[in-house]
Structures are given as structure tokens and as C-alpha cells.
């Protein structure tokens, strides 16, 4: 404890002593100061490293091969998500010219595109009968889309656990579907 116990305590001899001041130091001011400094350092430090999200793009050379493969990839498992301006998002299954389902408008978030993704992923697994062959998502963003939209969709991929997805340039047909042509 900070109070030093001086004075008193078996003063048996009757000598007259000057009453000693209690030597306890008032630490309140020091604590005030310390907390002020703590607050300062807490607010100025960048303790938490920024979060990040990994994005792996296919190699440019390999991308040409993908175009070839696309015809071979099962259209029952392929879903295309179109990102447009004004936070619009549309999806369809299969090929542009002859979609199996859609194109349908959708919203971002829990009640929107995530439900579709989860459901279609289940269907794709049921279709292929292999657990690791789920939905293949092709993401096409128009020129009016914002970076936020892109991150939102990539985030949905992470949440719904879709492993195969690709970010592909938009085609005129897709722009037409979005009505941005």
C-alpha cells in the first residue's frame, strides 16, 4: 500500500514528539494522467491490421483455355451473375442464349442472392453426385458496377462456400440482359 505507516505504534516513552504528517501520497492525479495517456495511445495506434480478402484470378494464358472449356462445362451447374449499376444484380443458369432458368432480378444480402446460391449449389451437387462438384459461378460486372458490388458478390461466394468462381469480362449479350446497352 502506498500509505507509509509512520507515527504511533508503541510510543511507550513519554517523549514529546512532533506529530508526523501521514506520508501517503495521493495518486489520483497520477492515475488521471496515466489514463489520459492510455486513451491517447489507444486511439492513435493502428492495432488492428486491416482485413483482407483473397482473390485469385486465373492466369491470362489459361483464360483462353477456359473459354474453350466453357462449352464442355455442364450448363446445369453453371450460374452467371451479372452485376449492373445502381446495385442491380441478375442471375441465370446455363448459357446466355438459352438459359435454363432466369434471368432473374435479385438483391444483395442474406435474403437475396445467398438463398439462390445455396439452393443452386445443392442442386448442382445433387446433379453431379459428387460433393466437390458444386456450382460454378461466373461473375460478370458491367462498367457501371461499383467495387462494393464486386466485393459483396465475392463475399457471398465465401459465405456460401462456392469454390469455383471466376471473374469474367462482360459480353454484349449480358449487357442487353442488364438493360445497359
Amino acid at each position, binding site marked *: *500500500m*502506498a*500509505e507509509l505507516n509512520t507515527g504511533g505504534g508503541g510510543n511507550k516513552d513519554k517523549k514529546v514528539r512532533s506529530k508526523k504528517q501521514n506520508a*501517503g501520497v*495521493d*495518486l*489520483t492525479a*497520477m*492515475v488521471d494522467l*496515466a*489514463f489520459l*495517456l*492510455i486513451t491517447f*495511445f*489507444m486511439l*492513435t*495506434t*493502428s*492495432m488492428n*491490421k*486491416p*482485413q*483482407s*480478402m*483473397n*482473390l*485469385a*484470378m*486465373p*492466369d*491470362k494464358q489459361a483464360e483462353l483455355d477456359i473459354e474453350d472449356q466453357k462449352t464442355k462445362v455442364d450448363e446445369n451447374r453453371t450460374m452467371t451473375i451479372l*452485376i449492373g449499376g445502381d446495385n442491380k444484380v441478375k442471375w441465370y443458369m446455363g448459357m446466355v442464349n438459352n438459359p435454363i432458368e432466369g434471368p432473374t432480378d435479385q438483391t444483395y*444480402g*442474406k435474403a437475396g442472392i445467398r438463398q439462390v446460391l445455396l439452393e443452386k449449389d445443392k442442386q448442382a451437387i445433387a446433379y453431379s453426385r459428387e460433393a466437390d462438384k458444386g456450382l460454378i459461378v461466373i461473375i460478370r*460486372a*458491367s*462498367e*457501371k*458496377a*461499383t*467495387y*462494393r*458490388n*464486386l*466485393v*459483396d458478390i*465475392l*463475399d457471398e461466394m*465465401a*459465405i456460401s462456400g462456392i469454390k469455383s468462381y471466376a471473374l469474367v469480362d462482360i459480353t454484349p449479350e449480358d449487357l442487353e440482359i442488364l438493360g445497359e446497352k
Partner: protein
Amino acid sequence: MAKGKMKKKSMSVDMTAMCDVSFLLLTFFVLTSTAKLPEPLPVDTPNSTVQTKLPESNLATVTIGGEPGKEKVFFGVLGKEDRIATLEKMGSRYQIEFNDEEKQVFAYTEGIGTPINELKKFLNQPADVRNKIGADQPGVPTDSLNNQLKDWVEMARTVAKERNNKVLDVAIKGDAEANYPAVKKVIDILQEQRVNKFFLVTGLRNEDF
């Protein structure tokens, strides 16, 4: 009834323990803190639920921000030594000689968005002019004819390879409202150099959005 008078206790609280704790915390914060460098181009990053942390070294950051439609690109490398080495390499490519003072200034700059031919002038400005910026720097040119971003990334990668013998990580820090083509352009420039893995800097949110 005769009420027994309570003996009044001393009102002063013993502050010793509190003082100990607060100074312990203070010491902790002082030792762990890294001084925040002024951000050259403040951006409002979009949020995601993914919680990968950014690497703390060996990282180049491409910042995309500014007015939507007229996005600016800024470039920065982590680590003072790496920054200086990158600047030297950049200087030798564009035949610009940087003196020690300019290198030091560059080492303490988080990122730059100035074309290389104006960089010397920029680095010689007083600190307050340099730091308030964001709006004052035009951004690193990314046109196909004058693709300085490509050179910056290339130099930074060479430096990482030579000095640390590591493959440089590249992070893209985009403003949420930035238009997609601006981001795509940067991705394309990076992919030309076969950088196919990026870190997208994002904020944090939970899954119920």
C-alpha cells in the same frame, strides 16, 4: 434507542493498484504502437465477412480512390528499405537521380500518386504540403502508353525478389464507390505481370447484412 454511531471511514481510496494497472497498460500501448503514417488517399473500403489479415511485410498496396468516374491510383510498398530500393530502381529506369534527402522523405511516405517526372518536385515540398494531399496528387499514370503503375509494381517485385527472396504480395485497396472498370484496369495491369493473387482490403462485418 441509542443508535451506535458508525465510525466514519476515510474517504480516500487507495489508488496504488489502479496506478499500477494503468501504467502497465500504458507501457503496453507505447511499446506495441506503430505511428500512423498519414494516408495519401483516404478510401472507404467495402466490407466483407472474410477475416484474412493482410501481411505485415513484403506487401505492395495499390490504392484506388477519389471521385467515382475519375479514380486515382496510388502506389506504396511496406518497409522503409524496400521503399528506397524501389525508388532507386524506378529512378534508374526513368533516368532520374534522387538524392538522400528525397529518398528519406520517400521512405516515410505511405504511398505516392505522382507521375515519376514530377516526383522529385513533390518530394522537395515541405511536409505539411505533402501530407495534406490526396487531392493534390494526380495519381500514378496507368495509360497503356505511359504505364507507370506497371513499372512501379515491376520494380517493387524485383526488389522483393532480390532483397528478401520472396514473391511480393499485392493488395488492392479500393474505395467502395469506385467504378468497376478502374479496379479491373488495375487487375489487368497486375495480371500482365502474372500477379494473379491479390488481397482485397476490406472492412469487417458479420453475416447478417
